[in-house]
């Protein structure tokens, strides 16, 4: 994503509500609330930026379930929802995840591109307001994956909490226009240095003890043993996939309501045994370690090979939700060198 060098501005904290209200012109404002979910907000007072949400904003571009088409008699109708939305307070890891999903659904192949209209229609209507992380949470390792704690691109506007004010940086032309409309005062070089301090402090607190140098080679050598070891602990709930901001697999099914047939696509997970079930043949990946391997390879190798991006952003959600304490960061560490 092309990143124009930002002209930073400042937002007084008492003007936060005004800022959020002004953003409503760009679409429905979705922001993290105190319950830890990204939800539509009417008023700035509903927004809680203090915690890193476990909820993943992916749902707004790639819904858990989405109607694909309806058939009545001989008539097939499809509606592609494409509402204008402002995703507010999106963390840098999730912004990287959006970029990853966008490349995938927009199609990374050179010839014969096939775009996913359901994803693209929503993605193209988004205004993304990033919120650079002042604090990590447990299991955060974005610094190792190079996606955070400060967003470098993939947003329209980025906010950084500098204590008394928010630093507001545009990520593109659209962001600059919004800043102009709001006539925010310019930020000083000192403010930019304070942003660097916020970043430094966050990285320090994150205390990531590994770097991913050599991962691309190591994964091919180590993935089988790591997948086997961690596969033994996996209870196959699929939680890691469902909370993952880059997981893009889905299934489709039909339901019948009277004379109307409805086809929906819905999230699916490669860790479930039935994922590769093939009628008349069986399972492509039956043992759990083969499915754990698939997950690791997809996150840490295949998308890197396809479009030069890991589809693990280091957000740590999979580690956070795993009831068997299978931590992605541990698996990466084991792949890179430990054992």
């Amino acid at each position, binding site marked *: 994503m092309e990143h124009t060098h930002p002209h930073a501005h400042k937002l007084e904290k008492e003007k936060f509500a005004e800022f959020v209200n002004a953003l409503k012109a760009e679409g429905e404002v979705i922001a993290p609330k105190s319950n830890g979910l990204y939800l539509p907000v009417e008023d700035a007072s509903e927004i809680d930026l203090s915690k890193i949400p476990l909820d993943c904003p992916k749902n707004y571009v790639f819904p858990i379930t989405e109607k694909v*088409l309806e058939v009545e008699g001989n008539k*097939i109708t499809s509606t592609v929802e494409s509402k204008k939305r402002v995703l507010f307070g999106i963390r840098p890891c999730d912004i990287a995840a959006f970029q990853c999903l966008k490349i995938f659904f927009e199609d990374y192949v050179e010839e014969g591109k096939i775009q996913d209209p359901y994803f693209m229609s929503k993605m193209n209507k988004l205004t993304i307001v990033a919120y650079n992380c002042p604090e990590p949470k447990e299991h955060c390792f974005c610094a190792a994956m190079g996606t955070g704690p400060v967003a470098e691109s993939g947003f329209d506007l980025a906010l950084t909490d500098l204590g008394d004010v928010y630093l507001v940086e545009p990520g593109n032309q659209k962001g600059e226009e919004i800043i102009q409309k709001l006539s925010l005062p310019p930020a000083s070089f000192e403010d930019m240095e304070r942003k660097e301090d916020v970043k430094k402090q966050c990285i320090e607190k994150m205390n990531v003890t590994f770097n991913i140098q050599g991962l691309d080679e190591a994964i091919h050598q180590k993935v089988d043993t790591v997948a086997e070891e961690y596969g033994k602990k996996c209870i196959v709930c699929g939680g890691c996939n469902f909370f993952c901001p880059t997981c*893009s*697999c889905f*299934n489709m*099914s*039909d339901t019948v309501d009277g004379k109307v047939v409805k086809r929906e696509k819905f999230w*699916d997970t490669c860790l479930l045994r039935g994922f590769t079930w093939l009628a*008349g*043949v069986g399972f492509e990946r039956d043992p759990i370690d083969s499915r754990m391997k698939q997950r690791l390879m997809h996150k840490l190798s295949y998308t890197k090979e396809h479009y030069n991006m890991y589809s693990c952003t280091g957000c740590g959600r999979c580690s956070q939700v795993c009831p068997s304490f299978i931590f992605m960061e541990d698996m990466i560490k084991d792949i890179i060198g430990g054992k």
Partner: protein
Amino acid sequence: MTENPYVPNMATITNIKDLTSDIKSFAIQFDDPNLKENWTFKPGQFVEISAFGHGEVPISISSSPTLKGQIELAIRNSGTVTAALQKMKTGDKVGLRGPYGNWWPYEKIKGKNVTIISGGIGLAAVTNILKYMIANKSDYKKIQLLYGSVVPSALVFTDEYEKWRQAGVDVHITVDRRVGDWTGNVGIVTWLFNEQPAPELEKVKIPEDATVIVCGPPIMIHFCCLDLVKSGFKPENIYLSLEGHMKCGIGKCGHCNIGPKYVCRDGPVFTYAEKKALEEQ
């Protein structure tokens, strides 16, 4: 086709033929006259067929692109959607979208000897190239077909073998087990060409320089390829069609992802060399 790749086009079943007790061949036409006239595909590609209310499944097109105005799909009753399709009658509506995937190397193998080895319903995924080559016979050298199934009643397209022979194809049929008054070959299809002593079976010589196309159950593909390599065929000259749970057909849903490849998009046709590389991933 509609712009939205997930939306099928309405089509009508115009003919149904029983191939075996659980496999039927469906002739299908697009309702849209323009599609009916102009929709085309390459031999080896597949379509997603909808039985509305039940779902969608990927099926290889068994007819040749040289057959205009309709396509033929051989479908085995093996799951929810295929069971629903099997209950359908002539005149019933289905949804079709595609064609998807890559195809048999029908251009690359022009001027060459081509041997097709197939098992069971796998024949339905190679009749497209077989019929295409018959329709363009002068473009190819010797065309050979080695086909086997478990028992005689599981052989598909039985009324066509004689037609293919008359068209100049070297056809060899075998069954694993003799049942009833079967007088033909008895033995696994690979025995037709490998070193396995098999008294009840004619031995077939595959031309040394032949490009080999293999399609059948995974276990048959596996042993067939091993035997071919043992007989001196290069993995790069052996083509096979892989199966996958290809839900979307367009490389998005993730179900047919094997290694870094998507069967629906990078395949379903792979060389044996490519398949081996995928297995090593």
